[in-house]
Structures are given as C-alpha cells and as structure tokens.
C-alpha cells in the first residue's frame, strides 16, 4: 500500500487554508495513495471530520498528531480508536502552554467540519512545546494504545538528533521518519544499536501539491508489525 502519514491540515498555523479534510482526502486519492494520516501540531481536533472525509472518498486513514515535546523534539503519535484520541487530547490540553495564537504572524488555526466549513479556531498557539518531556510523551501515547514515530529525524529543526544530538538509546519509539533512503542509512550508521524498527518516508506536506506521490509503500505485514496486531 502507498502511504503518507504526515500531512498538516489547515488546523496547523503553518499550513495552507485549503488543506481541508476533504481536499486532503481527495488529493491523496487522486495521487493514488491507499493510507494516510493528518498530523497537526499538538491537536487531534481535525480528526473526526477527516475520518468522515476519508470514508467518503474511500481511502484508509489512521488518527495522528505531531507533538512538540519540552525538548522541542517533534514526534508523530498515531491512534486507531477515536476514544483514545479524545483521552490523549485531554492530556495535551493539560500540558499546553496557554499562549494565544497571533494569526497575522503564525497563520490561522482553522477547524473544519466534514463539509470543509470552518466551524472554529484553536485559540492557543499549536506550534509550541508541551510541558512534557519526550519520554513522558511516549509513555502517555503508549498508555492510550498509540504508536510513536520520531518525526523527520535528521532535520535541522525540531528533530530528535538536532535537539538532543542523537537518538537516546532508551527511547521507546515505534518507528522513525526520514526524508529518503539515504537518510535511513545515515541514521543506521550513527546508531548501530537500532536493529528492527519501522521506517517511514512521509511528505510533512503543508500544501496540497506536496502530499506524497505513490512512491512510498509498505506491506500490510509491515504495517501490522508496526501496530503489533491486525489493522
């Protein structure tokens, strides 16, 4: 199956306003993807509308969010059940630094319904660190039956290697996200202790055109291995 598990919707202040749930689902379908996820910064509130949009288009989705930890490391957290998302969102709300979003500087944080109508806005700035460490975040995601993928691990901004120098050996991640296969080789060379993990190449798209082409594939078996069960 072709996938793209890191797409930002219009809820993320840094993404285009036309990154609505239906636009994303339909663009992914046109591009020939089979399985997608929206990972907005620090919020899962776009997920219910996105689920409906994906169902209507006939494309598979899992719930996702990109958390910024207190070390300013970005991690993608994924869930299969809406109930787990709701519980994790409650935790996010408790750990949020309540700094109001400045729309003219950071951009709008638009929340949509299943018809792509803007029904609200996130009041607090989403691109900000939660008051939770990387380790705590991973533990809580696991507690709510989610999986953790360290985002864009070799990026020069907000990646685990940039913020913390290297991937900590005690870090209980479930997968690693890279930009290409060369990066995967680099990560393995720098961290010989990483044997078995699930590797992802996602777009991190902030505009429709950047959603992945059908280039990155994963077998159902690999995906089940990631989740530790039949999905």
């Amino acid at each position, binding site marked *: 199956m072709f996938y793209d598990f890191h797409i930002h919707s219009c809820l993320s202040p840094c993404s285009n306003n036309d990154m609505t749930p239906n636009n994303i689902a339909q663009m992914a379908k046109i591009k020939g993807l089979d399985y997608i996820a929206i990972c907005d910064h620090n919020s899962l509130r776009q997920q219910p509308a996105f689920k409906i949009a994906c169902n209507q288009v006939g494309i598979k989705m899992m719930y996702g969010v990109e958390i910024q930890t207190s070390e300013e490391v970005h991690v993608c957290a994924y869930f299969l059940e809406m109930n787990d998302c709701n519980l994790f969102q409650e935790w996010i709300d408790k750990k949020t630094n309540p700094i109001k979003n400045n729309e003219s500087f950071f951009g709008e944080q638009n929340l949509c319904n299943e018809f792509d109508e803007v029904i609200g806005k996130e009041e607090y700035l989403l691109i900000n660190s939660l008051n939770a460490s990387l380790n705590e975040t991973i533990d809580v995601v696991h507690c709510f039956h989610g999986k953790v993928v360290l985002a864009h691990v070799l990026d020069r901004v907000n990646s685990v290697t940039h913020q*913390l120098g290297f991937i900590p050996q005690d870090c209980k991640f479930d997968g690693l996200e890279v930009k290409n296969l060369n990066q995967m080789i680099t990560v393995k060379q720098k961290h010989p202790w990483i044997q078995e993990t699930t590797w992802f190449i996602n777009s991190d798209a902030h505009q429709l055109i950047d959603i992945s082409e059908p280039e990155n594939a994963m077998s159902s078996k690999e995906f089940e291995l990631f989740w530790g069960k039949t999905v």
Partner: protein
Amino acid sequence: MKVNELIEKTGWKNISTEASLDKEIMGVYVGDLLSWVMGKGEQGQAWITVQSHLNVIAVAVLLEFSCVIIADGVIVPEDVLQKAIEENLAIVLADCSPFECTRKLIEFGY
C-alpha cells in the same frame, strides 16, 4: 576557577557528587541544541543550558565539560542525576536565566 569555587561564590547548588567539584572551569559554553553543542563545545568548559534530558550528560561527558549549569530553575529528572553521579559530573542548579548565569561567569573573568 574550580567548580567548588563557583558554587561558593554564587550560592548555586551542586546536586551531583562532591568529587565532581574539583574540576577546573576552562571556559564557558551556552546552548540548548545538543547537536550544536556537540560540534562547538570544548574540553573543560562549563555548559549553561535549560535542557535536562539524559543526553545532556552524554554530551557533557563526551566533551569532558567541567560542569553543567542548569539555568532557570529547570528540574533535573532522577535518571539524569543518577547518570551524572555515575559519571562524576557536577550538575549545578541555578535559579537565574542563562543570561544571568553568563553574566556571573563574566564577572569571574571568563
């Protein structure tokens, strides 16, 4: 000056071993991006940071820093402290900002 002199003069608190205080502070580095510090830091420096992840200890030991000064009253997790004790690395807690910490060290001639 040695780390114990710094503690005496500032009133900052070392939470690691006594023995770790005997190291000479050869210079100062300020930074929170560990990848950056790894590339730029030099042996013997005192490192001022607000990061308190376990990797801070690894980077400090790798570069043979004289001590780590954790600024702004950031809380150091227990596992991080244990690692510092194991490595005989001074962890100095300062209530003031990285800027104020730096200013103190400049006052001491760095």
